[in-house]
């Protein structure tokens, strides 16, 4: 049997812009799933479906993208989960939304479908009506002595996300951690269907509030690729300014959460001030604190405010000194750093299999940064350095967050200082086609796929890095002690809404 990557490349190609797709027969797909067991490459980034086919997005060790599709025969396709643990949640979602069955899969329980919708398989051609009956999730009950379980959520303390977490303990050591999500399923893909791309952008922008710019951008890239639309240089530059500001906001927030969880109150409080200054700056410059609905297919919804450029440069100046102080504070507190050491350690095998992205992935030694590769404008003409990696744990992650803060500040400043003049948007054409778009969000690579028919969205899918990070978090929770769990949760800080769709 050929190596999996070569096997995919040998298949027939079909049009998907800008990365052509490989079309496999159902038998070839099954052969691929067997070949994948032998090797961790290529990594699985996303798996989704349409009414008559399944799609997968792979990435090989050189960073090359391999989109693959295969027909669904008699409502079934060969599961990839035996070879790729990241496929487990996707396969359950495909069953819940499109009704296709993953033969040989590792878990058949419902995921998004909790039995509360008026129909089953809402994205299938003919969804079946159903009267709400709850489909309770079955958790493996402990059988041994000394083994006990406790559960959190879906509503848990403070300002928290809707999720259920079940932890199995053997005495003092965690045996298993299992998330159950789906509480935030809003039916985003059904809402996007049949709409003009600019109207549907509102849903892409609401997949995850703290990555609203990045999701809107990946989606816009997909639509623009499908329609062959060129975005004006001014819009490209301003989009990147927004994306970098979003990253700064996220990383500041993230450092604050880690500090709060580690009971380092001064650092937590110290992150709040620059974050609010930044939000005030983005509100003045772009009319929205989170910059929601600012990025749309074709360009931007509106230009930056007349004094926005000067405002943001001023904000960045003010932030510079504060962020330096925060870094000095973090790294001069041995007790804080000691608390973070060793948290989140994982086996290399699992990290390879789940291919985490963003600063989490980079802390585990990955070189993945989609601004660098595959790359997209304007980053092709800017240098995005990879942060130095010190240790694959929470302490190393904190260092990466600070390094990325400096990079993003620098990128935003350079972009703002050399803003091109001109239009901020190109009209979209009412044509048909398929596109795959990417953006580097604060937490990692976001992929959006769209199929347009006569200028309308016919189908779409959004893959947030959370799909790969949540299962990694489950493993990280089990790897530590009970006291480490809150810090693990704080570091991964995955989005619920973005994977609940």
């Amino acid at each position, binding site marked *: 049997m050929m190596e999996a990557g070569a096997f995919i490349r040998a298949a027939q190609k079909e049009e998907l812009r800008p990365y052509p797709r490989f079309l496999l027969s159902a038998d070839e797909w099954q052969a691929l799933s067997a070949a994948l067991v032998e090797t961790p490459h290529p990594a699985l980034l996303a798996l989704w479906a349409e009414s008559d086919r399944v799609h997968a997005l792979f990435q090989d060790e050189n960073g090359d993208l391999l989109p693959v599709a295969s027909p669904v025969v008699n409502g079934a396709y060969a599961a990839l989960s035996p070879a790729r643990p990241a496929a487990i949640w996707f396969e359950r979602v495909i069953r819940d939304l499109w009704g296709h069955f993953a033969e040989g899969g590792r878990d058949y329980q419902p995921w998004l479908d909790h039995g509360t919708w008026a129909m089953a398989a809402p994205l299938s051609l003919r969804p079946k009506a159903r009267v709400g009956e709850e489909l309770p999730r079955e958790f493996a009950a402990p059988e041994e002595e000394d083994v006990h379980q406790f559960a959190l959520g879906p509503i848990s303390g403070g300002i928290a996300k*809707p999720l259920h977490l079940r932890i199995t303990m053997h005495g003092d050591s965690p045996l298993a951690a299992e998330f159950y999500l789906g509480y935030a399923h809003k039916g985003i893909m059904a809402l996007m269907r049949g709409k003009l791309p600019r109207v549907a952008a509102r849903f892409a922008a609401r997949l*995850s509030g703290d990555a609203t710019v990045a999701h809107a951008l990946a989606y816009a890239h997909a639509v623009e690729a499908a329609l062959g639309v060129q975005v004006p240089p001014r819009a490209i530059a301003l989009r990147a300014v927004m994306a970098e500001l979003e990253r700064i906001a996220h990383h500041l927030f993230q450092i604050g959460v880690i500090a709060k969880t580690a009971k380092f109150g001064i650092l937590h409080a110290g992150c709040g001030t620059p974050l*609010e200054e930044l939000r005030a700056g983005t509100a003045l410059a772009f009319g929205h604190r989170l910059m929601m609905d600012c990025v749309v297919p074709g360009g931007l919804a509106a230009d930056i405010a007349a004094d926005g450029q000067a405002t943001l440069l001023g904000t960045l100046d003010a932030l510079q000194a*504060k962020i330096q102080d925060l870094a000095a504070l973090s790294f001069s507190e041995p007790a804080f750093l000691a608390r973070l050491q060793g948290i989140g350690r994982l086996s290399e095998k699992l990290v390879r299999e789940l291919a985490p992205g963003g600063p989490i992935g980079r802390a585990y030694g990955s070189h993945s940064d989609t601004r660098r590769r595959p790359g997209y404008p304007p980053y092709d003409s800017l240098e995005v350095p990879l942060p130095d990696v010190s240790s694959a744990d929470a302490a190393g992650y904190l260092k990466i967050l600070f390094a990325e803060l400096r990079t993003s500040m620098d990128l935003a400043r350079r972009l703002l200082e050399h803003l091109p003049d001109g239009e901020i948007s190109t009209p979209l054409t009412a044509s048909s086609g398929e596109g795959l778009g990417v953006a580097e969000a604060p937490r990692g690579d976001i992929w959006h796929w769209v199929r347009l028919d006569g200028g309308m969205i016919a189908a779409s899918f959004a893959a947030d890095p959370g799909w790969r990070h949540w299962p990694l978090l489950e493993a990280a929770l089990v790897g530590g002690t009970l006291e480490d769990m809150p810090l693990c949760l704080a570091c991964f800080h995955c989005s619920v809404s973005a994977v609940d769709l």
Partner: protein
Amino acid sequence: MLSLKLLQNLWKRPEARAFPPAQAEILAALQARLQEASQRRLGRSLAVRHVDTGGCGGCELELQALDSVIYDLSRFGLSFVESPRHADVLLVTGPVTHNMKAGMERAYAAMGQPKWVVAVGDCAIDGGVFQGSYACGNGVTTIPVDLVIRGCPPTPHQILEGLLTLLEANATGG
């Protein structure tokens, strides 16, 4: 160790935001509601319990911002609490997905009397952009809502304004 200057810089109180005035009209309506229910006054403090019913997380970010030192909620007598049993206010964000409806109703039922419900953000108010989806209803409809705070998301300042109006009604009405 930390330099003193560093500490001073970081610990310098950010100018705590001005106290937004209670909105007269909304205040009157809330007081009337309180009287109607002849509810016991809770005094000049409110414990707030947050429930995310499946929103995008944007409203949560603004709630987190509100809960930071900048706004210093404690000086207003406002605090976020963990258990519904200790809460006076159920603050709901998100469009109330069908998967979260029962959870929200249970949290409401677990609260003692008197209690307020505040819907924060457009999607909690009427479903917002998610209206018409197979997976959610049109915001908070199955428990009585006392106050709505519009926006997608509303700013921390707007949320504070709403909560202070509620606090005012609570302290003066009834």
